[in-house]
């Protein structure tokens, strides 16, 4: 399309003052433009041809937001193709005709902008122009629009339904378990071994080392590890075996001191609890590893338990533990570290098994009930997934026009 055709297309397809101005300009300079057309030269650029403005500006209160935000969308300027547009400028005003202030700009090719500076409850007007950096096109206008905050995030409705169903599933089975229903739980080898491991340590007169991961409470895996420590501490307190718990997180240390202390108090040996055995080393990942490695080679624990969130240090710890001949049981949901624990530990709890551990060890009906609820929800996940797969397949094969299920899983 030549420059001249473009001007004509602007003329015929766009309305408003821009086109009018363009028409006047084109007509008055027509001979010159015609020459330029024939010569195929750049003379046209000497003529002040206005940039085509963006069109069809649409404004709406940003949905599912905290407020003070308006979302603008528009159709790109037809001058995008000629490379004349570099940016779009966005203006806002409380008045339809005057007082517009630039509130933002977006690069060529973007047709949407979110203005986070609106005032809730006050009508605002918007204008968007296209610009080459200096010259600016006429504007596309829209408004008035009022922004408001929302009390519900509609894009997360599916997560809410899921969470509610999940909570009900757990609570239902916990209640059922309270009623004394016998529940089957499949064997978890690593956990069965903990009893033996404590016994073995007692016989050998060697300590047990418990490492509850390198993360803090913000990782739920750490909470799971603390629950397991509670069960382990009960056993070591009974057998009067030394339990060493070095920590990388001060809050976890504070909690674990409580846990171990209570366990010793419960079996009637509060004096046997030594606070120096549940201690803080350092938050720093490999400084912590250096310290724990030292404890391993010097104390030679009979058993080492790794439970919780682990990072790269897993193999340094587990290989050092293996080299001093300890029985090692690991449990983590850190997918990247599982292969290392599997290679160098005697038993490894994989992912979700870590979360099942405290229920399994304590055999408390209430906790086992929770596990059952978890399984039921997993079943639901599987069924929903299958339905979604069938729906997607039918849509892909052209049997149905579209896939109605998968979008329901979409996250915002």
């Amino acid at each position, binding site marked *: 399309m030549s420059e001249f055709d473009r001007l004509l297309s602007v003329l015929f397809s766009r309305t408003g003052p821009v086109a009018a101005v363009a028409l006047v300009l084109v007509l008055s300079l027509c001979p010159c433009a015609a020459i330029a057309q024939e010569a195929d030269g750049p003379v046209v650029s000497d003529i002040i041809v206005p940039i085509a403005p963006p069109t069809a500006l649409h404004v709406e209160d940003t949905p599912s937001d905290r407020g003070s935000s308006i979302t603008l969308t528009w159709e790109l300027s037809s001058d995008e193709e000629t490379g004349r547009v570099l940016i779009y400028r966005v203006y806002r005003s409380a008045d339809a005709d005057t007082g517009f202030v630039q509130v933002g700009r977006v690069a060529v090719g973007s047709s949407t902008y979110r203005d986070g500076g609106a005032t809730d409850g006050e009508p605002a007007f918007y204008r968007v122009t296209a610009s080459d950096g200096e010259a600016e096109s006429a504007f596309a206008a829209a408004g008035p629009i009022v922004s408001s905050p929302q009390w519900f995030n509609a894009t*997360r409705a599916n*997560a*809410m339904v*899921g*969470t509610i169903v999940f909570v009900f599933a757990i609570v239902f089975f916990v209640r059922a378990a309270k009623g004394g229903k016998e529940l*089957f*739980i*499949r064997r978890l080898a690593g956990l069965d071994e903990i009893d033996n491991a404590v016994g073995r340590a007692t016989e050998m007169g060697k300590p047990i080392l418990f490492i509850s991961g390198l993360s803090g*409470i*913000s990782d*739920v895996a750490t*909470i799971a590890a603390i629950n397991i420590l509670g069960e382990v501490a009960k056993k070591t307190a009974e057998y009067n075996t030394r339990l060493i718990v070095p920590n990388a997180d001060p*809050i976890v240390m*504070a*909690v674990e*001191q*409580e846990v171990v202390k209570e366990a010793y108090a419960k079996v009637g040996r509060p004096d046997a609890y030594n606070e120096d055995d549940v201690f803080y*080393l*350092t*938050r*720093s990942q*490999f*400084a*912590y590893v*250096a*310290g724990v*490695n030292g404890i391993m*080679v*010097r104390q030679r624990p009979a058993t080492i338990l790794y439970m919780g969130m682990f990072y*790269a240090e897993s193999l340094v710890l587990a290989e050092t533990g293996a080299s001093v001949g300890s029985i090692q049981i690991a449990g983590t949901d850190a*997918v*990247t570290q*599982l*292969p*290392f624990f*599997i290679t160098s530990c005697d038993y490894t709890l*994989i*992912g979700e*098994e870590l979360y*099942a551990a405290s229920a399994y060890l304590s055999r408390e009906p209430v906790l086992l009930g929770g*596990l*059952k609820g*978890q*399984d039921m929800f*997993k079943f639901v*996940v*599987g069924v*929903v*997934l299958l339905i*979604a*797969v069938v729906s*997607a*397949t039918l*849509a*892909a*094969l052209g049997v149905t026009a579209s896939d109605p*299920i998968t979008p329901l*899983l*979409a*996250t915002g």
Partner: protein
Amino acid sequence: MSHHIIWTTIGAILTLSIYSFLYKDNPFYKFAEHLVVGISAGYYLVIYTFNFIVPNVARPVFGLELGGEAIRFAGLEWWMALIPGLLGLLLYARFFPKFAWVGRWPLGIYVGGYAGLGLSPVMQARVLQQMEANALPLTSLTNILLVVGLLGTLIYFFFSMRHKGVLGVFARIGIVFLMVGFGASFGYTVMSRISLLIGRVDFLLSDWLHLAGG
């Protein structure tokens, strides 16, 4: 610059001390180990104090300068800065047996807060998102494998049912996928770890001894 050489040499000697652990535990390793525990514990204490307690509590509550602008908050804002500070101090109640139980208040808030974050956001990010990504049309072998593998892995994690019959078959498929995945993860990791060793050797040879061209 001799200053630089001294620090680099210290770093190099400590590096070699750690490597000596590969042979066996020895006083050089013990020294480096204890040193780094002490130094890093001090480092994090300082960093967290200056980054959290000073700007959020010390300055707004007491109007202290502490290397920044002294702004003392007033009214509600002052209380909002004071309360977390008090909660933090309550952690130390454990040192006074009579009040030790009060120390559980901040722990309750802390544990509860993060547990709450482990509910709904996890549903979205870990469960729904992965389901959506795996809701694939069964039109290619890849997709079929992804769907079957995911279902198998899910079934492997069933706790309350015996892995027998159809369930057993799927659980077995799940294990196969898990093992291939773990193998892949292991193989993939090797790369990273060797990179680190290369980094250290590079430090010893190039930065310290200037043997290999940087």
